[in-house]
């Protein structure tokens, strides 16, 4: 089975034209299998909240904390949901025709792509100049947290649970994956705007060589099917019972003081009293 589809250009070159759509099915099935495997594992896994007694102690020590703590401001939430709508539209318009639901998808797809691009550009600006830019990034400083997380996942519940700052390590790793896939899919998508009639740029399919175009389509396709798995995982975690407090925070903006103390290190995510 070829994972990438090739063709011979009019100039006799062998060029990539797009990915094999079997990769879409692989991503879909892979995402669903992960969901099942993780769900099964979690049935037997310890809950990793801070113990109640410890939280009670912390609440007494930090009595000045507000009852509700803002986790995501309105602008950040608006960005998230706009991006979610754009992403789901992109995925459905891209892959429904592959699974046999035929409709005129291209216009919806590029329009959703423009919306995604605009929202990501806004997010970059907002995160850089308004939010705590480094709070979402992963770096060497996270290695101890990663080690502890892995050890506890392997059953070492005796180890002290690493208390994350504003974003848990899994959250930050997910953001990294989405960022890499997102920037590639947006970059290639912008290039592909020159291949369709949009009214935004003048169509010119000879803007790049056939080889460059081929790689563009392959990159776009690979990241697209990557997003199938990423979005399945994201929705799954958002709906998991122990994560619902995070999902609610993405809707309403706040977490309770107790949720904050149960799940975070107050010294790493400092809340202004």
């Amino acid at each position, binding site marked *: 089975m070829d994972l990438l589809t090739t063709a011979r*250009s*009019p100039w006799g070159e062998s060029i990539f*034209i797009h990915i094999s759509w079997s990769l879409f099915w692989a991503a879909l099935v892979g995402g669903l299998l992960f969901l099942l495997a993780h769900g099964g594992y979690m049935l037997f896994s310890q809950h990793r909240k801070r113990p109640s007694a410890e939280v009670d102690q912390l609440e007494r020590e930090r009595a000045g904390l507000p009852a509700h703590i803002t986790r995501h401001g309105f602008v950040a939430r608006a960005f998230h949901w706009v991006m979610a709508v754009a992403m789901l539209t992109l995925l459905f318009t891209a892959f429904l025709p592959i699974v046999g639901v035929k409709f*005129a998808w291209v216009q919806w797809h590029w329009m959703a792509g423009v919306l995604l691009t605009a929202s990501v550009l806004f997010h970059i600006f907002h995160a850089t100049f308004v939010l705590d830019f480094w709070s979402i990034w992963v770096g060497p400083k996270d290695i101890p947290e990663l080690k502890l997380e892995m050890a506890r996942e392997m059953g070492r519940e005796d180890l002290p649970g690493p208390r994350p700052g504003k974003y848990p390590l899994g959250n930050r790793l997910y953001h990294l994956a989405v960022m890499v896939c997102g920037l590639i899919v947006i970059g290639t998508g912008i290039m592909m705007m020159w291949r369709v009639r949009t009214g935004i740029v003048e169509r010119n*399919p000879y803007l790049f060589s056939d080889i460059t175009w081929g790689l563009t389509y392959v990159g776009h396709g690979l990241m697209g099917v990557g997003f199938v798995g990423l979005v399945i995982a994201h929705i799954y975690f958002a709906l998991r019972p122990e994560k619902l407090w995070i999902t609610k925070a993405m809707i309403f903006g706040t977490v309770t003081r107790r949720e904050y103390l149960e799940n975070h290190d107050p010294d790493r995510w400092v809340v202004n009293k």
Partner: protein
Amino acid sequence: MPAFELFQPASVSDALGVLNRHGADAWVMAGGNDTFDWLKDRIKKPKVVVDLSMINELHGIKDAGGGLEIGATTTLTTIANNPMVKERFPMLAQAALLVASPQIRNVSTVGGNVSQDARCWYYRAGWPCYRAGGNICYADTPTSINREHALFGADRCVAVNPSDTAPALVALDAQFVIKNGDAERVVSAEEFFIGPGIDITKLTSLQPGDLLTAIRIPSTFAGKAHFFEKVRDRQVWDFALVNIAASFNMAGASIGEARMVVNGVAATPYRLNAVEAFLRGKSRDKATAEAAADMAVEGAVPLKHNAYKIPLMKALVKRAIRGDAEWTS
């Protein structure tokens, strides 16, 4: 030609059995005029070819309550010469008569004519364009030769539907009978043709295993006012640059109901819905024709070399409304 396994079933059920067994590997052949181009150029290499020419039940024209039912492999010559077609639907007889040359019409079938693939030469040359499963339209670039290509509905691919009988059948509100296994579905002529937005690799809604068995024309426009005209580069034998089919159900001197369809300007026969609505209650005079012609070309997006199709299409719309192929003013 590349080697393939040839089946020559003698009945529709046998043909459907073969098509079901081989699915997307099977190629349905009627008259062979489209098929052999592809095969001899080694662009398409089907594993299995199902030749329908031996199936008698697919041939012939019969009365159907004042309308007609035409077998899918009825030849264009038969249609052009059939008295019932000429009397009830002269537009269809004329459309069939103007396809290609007499020799080709003798073997070409109506099913094949409506199901034939795009004639874009970039696609036919085997280049990896969108329609061939690739990621580019070679006919829509700054340097393309695209004189014959689309004005409307281009969605990455700018190929046009090349059929002459297709616009006539849409204008007559024909129904296409499609069988697949034990199932049968009937789709309107409009639904039968699909554009690149829906599926960029096909011109019709036929799926693997499908067999177009008949075309039913209702009596709605039987014996009414019809018009068909085809403009082509070579009068003796060529595909249409633009053709038009129109049927008018007159209410006295005014138009009661009209159906107007232009082909050669989009990937599907292009129905002039706005014009049809405009014509209701109007007389077939010069003022009506000119207003309708302007309306017909609204939304046209010409390519580098096909802008001439806009005035050509306007002229054909005017002539159709006047009912006079010689009318020029």
